[in-house]
């Protein structure tokens, strides 16, 4: 394997378009990009950096044994969450899978509540009940954080369905992985959203692997790529170089317009890459892909680097400013760690809270009788 170049690696043979380097400014003139203020551009940069620093801090804490369960890092994919979310309006919603830290920070969740959630603390965004895979911020129109592969795909359709039902001009973006496209429920969802003109956008974050299985080992797909499965349902699709925030924004924006104006769904395939393993437990991720491959992406297609380059060329950023943003993000993450460390765990009584609305809000429903069946509580 070590003699393979990224170009000859089986993985890339199946997705060559992902390898071409995108033209930095190809989409700069797209209305959605042309209209961006400097502040907005810098915010995108800052958000991507913040995601990365947050996760680097989380990784450290994980390695110190501060958390349990899984930790799926988004590092390498930042432009997808930040770029797509950055074009959304106030009536648009998102939902994603378990690799959700990037989306959470992109919609504006705070590092504190996110870090505390990883620590299983009561101050976490889900009170320590959800963990890494289950971030939620309904008030920011972010509906999670879902652990069952593709389980969120009909839910995304439902969010958009509700908008249409209520006559609200808006859309929902539902993210899923390249491995997730092979769950039946995703296909059922595609048929439903096309049949019923539901304004949903499915974003396939194609990072080339589902755990240790490369895209070509898990999916049969047409030449045009995974997203082209959309044609089975008369749904428009597009493919996107995920390292280029301009391109992500331009193509997402087009899909959003389609949703707003025609109430039609779109499938977008965004080529991207994760630098770490599937989760931290995936220690041997250099067995199913080469170091060269990883390095290739880091060196040529890192979304933060690419955007930095663009903003430097545009004169909005310089080395000092980058360092400043970096350090601020690092400091913010460090504070979040401290916040998480110092926060309390949920008391055991919390085990039985948030199970039922009717229990947590007595008197609001016609409910009687026993709802929990513990012979004896252990606390």
């Amino acid at each position, binding site marked *: 394997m070590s003699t393979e170049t990224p170009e000859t690696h089986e993985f890339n043979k199946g997705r060559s378009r992902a390898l071409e380097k995108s033209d930095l400014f190809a989409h700069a003139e797209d209305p959605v990009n042309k209209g961006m203020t400097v502040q907005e551009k810098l915010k995108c940069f800052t958000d991507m950096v913040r995601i990365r620093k947050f996760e680097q801090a989380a990784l450290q804490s994980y390695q110190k044994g501060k958390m349990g369960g899984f930790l799926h890092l988004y590092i390498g994919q930042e432009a997808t969450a930040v770029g797509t979310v950055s074009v959304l309006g106030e009536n648009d*919603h998102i*939902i994603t899978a378990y690799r959700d830290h990037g989306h959470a920070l992109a919609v504006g969740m705070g590092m504190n509540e996110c870090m505390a959630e990883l620590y299983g603390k009561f101050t*976490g*965004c*889900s*009170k*320590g*009940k*959800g963990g890494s895979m*289950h971030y*939620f*911020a*309904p008030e920011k129109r972010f*509906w*999670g*954080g*879902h652990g*069952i592969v593709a*389980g969120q*795909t*009909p*839910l*995304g*359709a*439902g*969010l*958009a*369905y*509700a*908008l249409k*039902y*209520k006559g609200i001009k808006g859309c*929902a973006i539902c993210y899923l992985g390249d491995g997730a496209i092979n769950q*039946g*429920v995703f296909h*059922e*969802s595609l*048929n*439903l959203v096309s*049949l019923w003109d539901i304004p949903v956008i499915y974003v396939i974050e194609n990072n080339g692997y589902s755990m240790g299985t490369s895209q070509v080992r898990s999916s049969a797909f047409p030449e045009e790529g995974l997203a082209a499965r959309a044609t089975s349902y008369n749904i428009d699709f597009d493919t996107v170089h995920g390292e280029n925030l301009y391109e992500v924004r331009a193509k997402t924006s087009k899909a959003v317009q389609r949703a707003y104006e025609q109430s039609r769904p779109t499938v977008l395939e965004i080529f991207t890459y994760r630098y770490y393993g599937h989760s931290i437990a995936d220690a041997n991720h250099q067995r199913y892909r080469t170091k060269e491959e990883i390095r290739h992406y880091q060196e040529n297609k890192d979304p933060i680097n690419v955007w930095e380059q663009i903003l430097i060329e545009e004169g909005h950023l310089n080395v000092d400013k980058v360092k400043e943003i970096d350090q601020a993000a690092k400091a913010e993450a460090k504070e979040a760690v401290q916040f998480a460390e110092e926060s309390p765990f949920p008391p055991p009584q919390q085990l039985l*809270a*948030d*199970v*039922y*609305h*009717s229990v*947590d*809000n007595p008197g*609001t*429903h*016609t*409910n*009687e*009788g*026993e*709802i*929990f*069946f513990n*012979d004896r509580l252990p606390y």
Partner: protein
Amino acid sequence: MAVITYRQALKDALAEEITRDENVFVMGEEVAQYNGAYKVTEGLWKKFGDKRLVDAPISEAGFIGLGIGASFLGLRPVIEMMFFSFVYVAWDQAVNNTSSIRYMSGGLINCPLVIRGPANGGTNVGATHSHTPENMVANVPGLKVVVPATPADAKGLLKSAIRDNDPVFVMESTLLYGNEGEVPEDDEFLIPLGKADVKREGSDITIIAHGGCVLAALKAAEKLKKEHNVDCEVVDLRSIRPLDKATILKSVKKTNRALLVEENKPFCGVGAQISHIIQREAFDYLDAPVHRISAVDAPAIYSPPVEKVQVPNAEQVFNEVRHMLQIKA
């Protein structure tokens, strides 16, 4: 009070709730233009139109999941399963997603979803179509399950289920749809989830049942009274989760004997749980072990006369009570 069918009672419940709350809609296979495979929604599409009665493709996981997502934004979907057995193709959506979301979000998200449809055997549709999964659903904390036996209960429970902010499974029976009974005409007629109904008072033995088995129990009780002067108390659970433990225990403490009747397959059926509760909390009141009647423990058979034997009936209840009370034939 009007005398209407169980089917009509369900339909009235749907119509009233659709009228009352613009967020309520019904989705499922053949529920709209076809008027429902079992005609529970007959006439509703004509009355309320495409938005409130939605015909769905054969994609249970897809449209239940869609209902879940829609419920996050305040809609109140009522999803019809043509047969409840079909929920198995959507099991992850129906039980895993629905039950976990409120918890995993620390209470930020609600899932006010109703999944309803017939869950019964006895109609010769074979093994794959005859499941009664109330025990499996009730096993999952976060979910609620009701199983109405009469037209009034069907209406009152379905209305409460639709107004509930938690996911509620309403399990009906094709064999009950045609049954008639008195139903209050009040739009606000609600039966609380978790409240059992003592359908017949008695002092000699408590028969606990739900769904169609309640009727078998009542019939057996009449016969036992007539032929053996035995007074059975018949407790209709109505709701499996929440469960009216108090009513169960009160009755058993009075009669000192309990017989559980259900159409569930026995292993880890609802009766098992109730049996455990009774022996655990009324141990000293029991004059004899708790007995159970369930469906014969095999996949549902097609052969019509044999399926009759497989599913509990009044005769079996009658005989079991005689066994328990040591009454000779």
